[in-house]
């Protein structure tokens, strides 16, 4: 369900920050999956370990993407991805 919301957000939204939120929602959907499967199906801690890794990596990813969006904002005074049209063809 959360994953579907994330996909929807990616397809519909035009603001780069909202796209980032949508990706974060998808990652959190996967994290919830890991924890839930770990708790109710398999009691082997693999899922919990994976979630630790994935939270750290999602944070790193958010930092990198935010930095890139910040540069985009400084260059263009806006972060609407539909304005990114200088490379068409």
């Amino acid at each position: 369900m959360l994953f579907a919301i994330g996909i929807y957000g990616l397809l519909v939204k035009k603001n780069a920050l909202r796209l980032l939120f949508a990706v974060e929602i998808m990652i959190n959907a996967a994290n919830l999956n890991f924890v839930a499967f770990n708790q109710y199906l398999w009691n082997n801690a693999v899922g919990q370990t994976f979630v630790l890794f994935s939270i750290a990596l999602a944070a790193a990813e958010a930092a990198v993407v935010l930095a890139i969006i910040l540069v985009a904002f400084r260059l263009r005074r806006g972060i609407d991805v539909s304005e990114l049209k200088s490379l068409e063809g």
Partner: protein
Amino acid sequence: MDYVSLTVILMSVSSLLLPIFLFDPKRREREPAYFLGVVLAASLLMIGINTIYPAPGTIFGSLLASDRLGGIFALTTLFVTLIVVIVSTYTKRGPNTPAYYSLLSFTALGMVLLSYSQDLLIIFVAWELMSLPTYVLAGFNKRSMESNEASVKYAVIGAMSSAIILYAISLTYGLTGTTQISAVVQALSTQPLTLATSVAVLLFVTGFGFKMSIVPFHMWIPDAYEGAPIIVSTLLAAATKKAGFVSAIRVLLAISTFYVLTQNPIFTLPNVFAGLALVTMTLGNLAALTQKSMTRLLAYSSIAQAGYILIGFVIYSYGIQNSAFLREASLGITGALFHIVNHAIMKGVAFLAAGLVLLQLHRGDVQAYDGLSRRMPFTAITLSVAFLALAGVPPLSGFWSKLLLFLSVINGPFAWLAVAGVLNSAFSLGYYAWIIKRMYLDEPETAEKVNEPYTYLVIFAVSIGLIIGFGVFPDGIINFLSGAFTNIAPH
């Protein structure tokens, strides 16, 4: 201590040490490149030794295994990264140069880990380690609108693809209770087919497909390759794309050994691959034909090449379940591996040559290539050889790998794929020959000679040597590659 773990430790240390150069304003431009160059050369040597005399068993618990398949991919990606580092010294990058090399080092480490990975956990971690630095590298010219746009598009789509892979892994974990690939395959093969399994497999195809530049997931490729600094595009096209292929081989082809996507006979994994392969090569070639910019042309031709490589996936996933086609399966996957290695060299050198033209003439459109043979003779001959090899003209290396791929599917239900592949190759010669004609027959705008640095010439010579060498003596390399695929799946 075996060579693979030594390489991993060495490269981690170098990635973390490189930023130290930031504090020394006098040694910021060149020294980091020399340092990273030496580290990469040493890693290349160690991985090379390990690939020829593999250390048995697994590394770091059961996360990595030093098999030949991983060795081939690690060697290819390290070789490309080394060339990228050498060539990078020709571009001034300002005070952030050490950070640039540090990011390159992180990417290379991610690709090596990905090549050897045996566990979905390490695949995800290495995938991110490989991708995150390349988002920044694509936008490294931070004053340039194009570079930034390439980086925004690449980063958003890249983040989405890793989220998709993560979700697929979570579903796989839910189904099997483990992330060890061989255990996952074993557990899945005993289960009845459910919707969740199909969704997980399709999500893996999608997630890896973004990096492999397969057609419905290719839209970021031309923008990212054109906008990014062209040396970084070389890295993206020739190295990180290959890492996408290795993870697809590790996960999807292992799963394909037992798995049919649905009970419906039309919608099976080989058929999905076959459809993707057909669309990818046709659309890539069609789009390349109409391009005005050299980097975009190379980007679309790179998409088309991914379609040829997928043919090997088709026949492997089909043949492994039909014992009558086992020989074809191994032929096809050998062809795919050979084409991956060839493509890294051919596309890498083509991007480098285009980068040299851009560096010296400050122009990236195809008109800049008019009469290039008189202004930059060595660059022109290198581009011609690379293009002919990409089109699959004998006796160059690209001919043999395509021959293997098409031969493997010619008998059996996917014969139409071989026909489509041959037609596409002929078709692609249309735009390759068009550029070659521009370089050799058209009149240049000005006749003045342009400087071609020695470093570039040495790299060009080595790459042409490899392309022709693989083309004239293909036996040795084919035998070597065909041995790589014995231990991918538990039998």
